[in-house]
């Protein structure tokens, strides 16, 4: 195994998997976050129909992240989940409420539909916030003895993680609103064009706050950005340029560009986070190599994953192709 660093391969696979999740479930969680602000029921119908056929597949990337961590980096799994015990519960409860809302909302009458609207909004927002708090906790670090978390149940909840939580809520809402622009027409899209610049401004505000706060919160991050390679500063620069490009495209009412731009923003945030934390899997002490599972187990799963992930990406792309184009409020549930 000296020739190939399996652990490095797994860092790449899990990294891509988590990013796939953030992008894909990000926009459908974002649609939920935006739900109460939609102008009318028709807009809500259209927004929900735009994600109904694909949200379940999107969310599966989260399960892959969980199972993949257990397989490749069990220590990350065994430290993060107990440390985030209450946060994980909130995340799961959120995902439950928003998940069932898809089925229940379309089967309920006008009498009770507003309950499932709330459930979809509340669940999506709580789940997004919890994910942001997880990212913040990762930056913040854990109290670990040996291979186990030994801190308290609410150690993760700090002003810093509150802020990263809200930042992700805003970020997902941006993905959701640009997705809505892409998938709708008429009054719904007009509304989305009005909201999108404000959300983009909010996301950039969070970007500035996090960029200042993170080096203050973590010595390791400070050293990475201020003592080492200055070429890293290309990433914040690209972020600002991308945001300006999205603003411009929103003003010109381009349908697809804002969504592509928002995904690019997320990619830049994500790379920035990875650069900041590298090579720590369980900060402040354990690297990915400390946290890795048995090479035999990593290899056994790698063989299958290398073969299966392209197939999964293939049929996922096919379903997105099947449901391409603008949604029509009267159409989606005809056969169901």
């Amino acid at each position, binding site marked *: 195994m000296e020739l190939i660093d399996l652990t490095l391969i797994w860092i790449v696979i899990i990294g891509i998997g988590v990013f796939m999740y953030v992008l894909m479930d990000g926009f459908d969680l974002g649609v939920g976050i935006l739900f109460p602000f939609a102008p009318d029921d028709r807009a809500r*119908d259209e927004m929900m129909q735009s994600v*109904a*056929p694909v949200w*379940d*597949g999107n*969310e*599966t990337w*989260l399960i*892959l992240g969980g199972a993949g961590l*257990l*397989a490749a980096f*069990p220590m990350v*799994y*065994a*430290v993060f*989940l*107990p*440390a985030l*015990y*209450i946060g*994980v*519960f909130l995340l*799961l*409860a959120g*995902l*439950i*409420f928003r*998940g*069932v809302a*898809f*089925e*229940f*909302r*379309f*089967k*309920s*009458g*006008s*009498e009770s*539909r507003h309950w499932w609207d709330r459930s979809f909004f509340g669940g999506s927002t709580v789940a997004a916030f919890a994910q942001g708090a997880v990212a913040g906790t990762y930056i913040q670090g854990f109290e670990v003895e040996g*291979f*186990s978390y030994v801190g308290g*149940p609410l150690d993760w909840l700090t002003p810093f993680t509150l802020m990263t939580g809200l930042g992700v809520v805003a970020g997902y809402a941006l993905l959701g609103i640009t997705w809505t622009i892409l998938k709708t027409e008429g009054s719904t899209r007009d509304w989305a064009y009005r909201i999108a610049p404000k959300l983009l401004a909010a996301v950039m505000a969070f970007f500035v706050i996090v960029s200042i706060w993170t080096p203050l919160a973590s010595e390791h991050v400070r050293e990475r950005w201020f003592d080492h390679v200055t070429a890293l500063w290309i990433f914040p620069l690209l972020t600002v340029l991308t945001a300006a490009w999205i603003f411009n495209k929103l003003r010109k009412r381009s349908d697809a560009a804002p969504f592509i731009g928002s995904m690019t923003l997320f990619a830049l945030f994500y790379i920035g986070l990875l650069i900041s934390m590298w090579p720590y899997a369980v900060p402040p002490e354990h690297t990915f190599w400390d946290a890795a599972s*048995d090479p*035999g*187990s990593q290899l056994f799963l790698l063989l*299958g994953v290398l073969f*299966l992930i392209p197939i*999964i990406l293939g*049929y*996922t792309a096919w379903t997105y192709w*099947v*449901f391409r184009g603008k949604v029509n409020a*009267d*159409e*989606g*549930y*005809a*056969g*169901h």
Partner: protein
Amino acid sequence: MELDPLLLSRIQFAFVVSFHAIFPVFTIGLAAYIAVLEALYYRTDNPVWEKLSKFWTKVFALVFGMGVVSGIVMAFQFGTNWSTFSYSSANFLGPILSYEVVTAFFLEATFLGVLLFGRDKVPRGAHLFSACMVALGTFISSFWILSANSWMHTPAGVEFNDGIIQVTSWTQAIFNSSLPYRFAHMALASFITGGFVVAGVSAWYLLKERNPETSRKALKMSIVMLAIATPLQLVVGDLHGLNTFEEQPIKVAAMEGHWETQEGAPLILFAIPDSRNETNHLEIAIPKLGSLILTHSLDGEVTGLTSVPAEDRPPVGIVFWSFRIMVGIGLIFIVISLASAWQLWRGKLEASPRLLKALTWMIPLPFVAVLAGWFVTEVGRQPWLIQDMMRLSEGITPSITGGMVLVTLIGYIAVYAVVFAAGLYYLRRVILAGPDPVEDASSDESARPKRPWSAVSSGLEDEAAKARS
């Protein structure tokens, strides 16, 4: 009073698993049924199959939705409450659960979108293919999860080094000795569950003289399947029991209520096991039959509970009674299925209101039987988390406190209660609404403006609201 995190975590896990288990056991069978209906429609063009498939797909989507969200909880519960177990066994369980995700979950979740929303957007062959992929996904999923579960009962192909499990043989670990029995038992249970729900709902429609054309076909299909599956389940269950007798004799001792190791053990039909005094009260038993079933010899030796220290025994009462409930329901199933098949063969099933009524009463029973079966096998493994390798008390998260587990336990119960109540309510409405009538099928459908299902059902509820006011 100090809250015991171990006991509360066990209760929490049992609650979450039990709640989750009832959904897949139904959707596995139903997914296969929908795939069959789609295939029939594809081949014959008969709109009856399409109406049936659309109807059961609605039911499937509701139940699958609840199954998915409760299943996500499971994937994280190992880490939150049993992190030491997860960390120790990750080298085996991690890849197995990951394979479940990449071979099954993606398949189900992605093609479900096409099955539910793609009927008018993809060619008919692609729609049938999607139905088959969803069904295949549910099956592959149950294979992996049962492999992981069976391994915890009959671990193989691994070594325990410094508290970490390392895999020495993937084939031995995955295809461990109890997997074939457990998988066959579970697959049959899924078909039986799906079959009794379809049969029960169809029988109810026939009793109400509703949707006769679709219900007649659905009832016939499910009865034929049940008449084969229910007796077969008795055979598979017996084989599973023999494997357990070999691998986990103490579990069988608890199932059978045997305290002393003895030759020529009786088959105990009824008893009230008493753990403190290590004996049974009010025992009704058939001499020597226990040995005959388990060892195929009248004088075969059957291990008793007292052969191991008290702390190594499972709670006998739960295992003993769950086992009797499961077997009892299984026997009722065989009688009802065979009687229905007999009447069907004579062409008199539809004219037998008592049998049709009995079939509708069967609907909840497969779920009870499945839960009872899970209790037998899981409680019967106690106090082991991995049989003879790791105790439950060794697997729990070190940082966990009783208070945390209690808070989240109450949280899960509250969340699931809301979801389950709403789910049952909408299921009832879907079933009361029934399949679309066959008369207005294919020909004029494309001419009518397409109405979303939500619009149709909101009409129902609004009328009901008017009637109430």
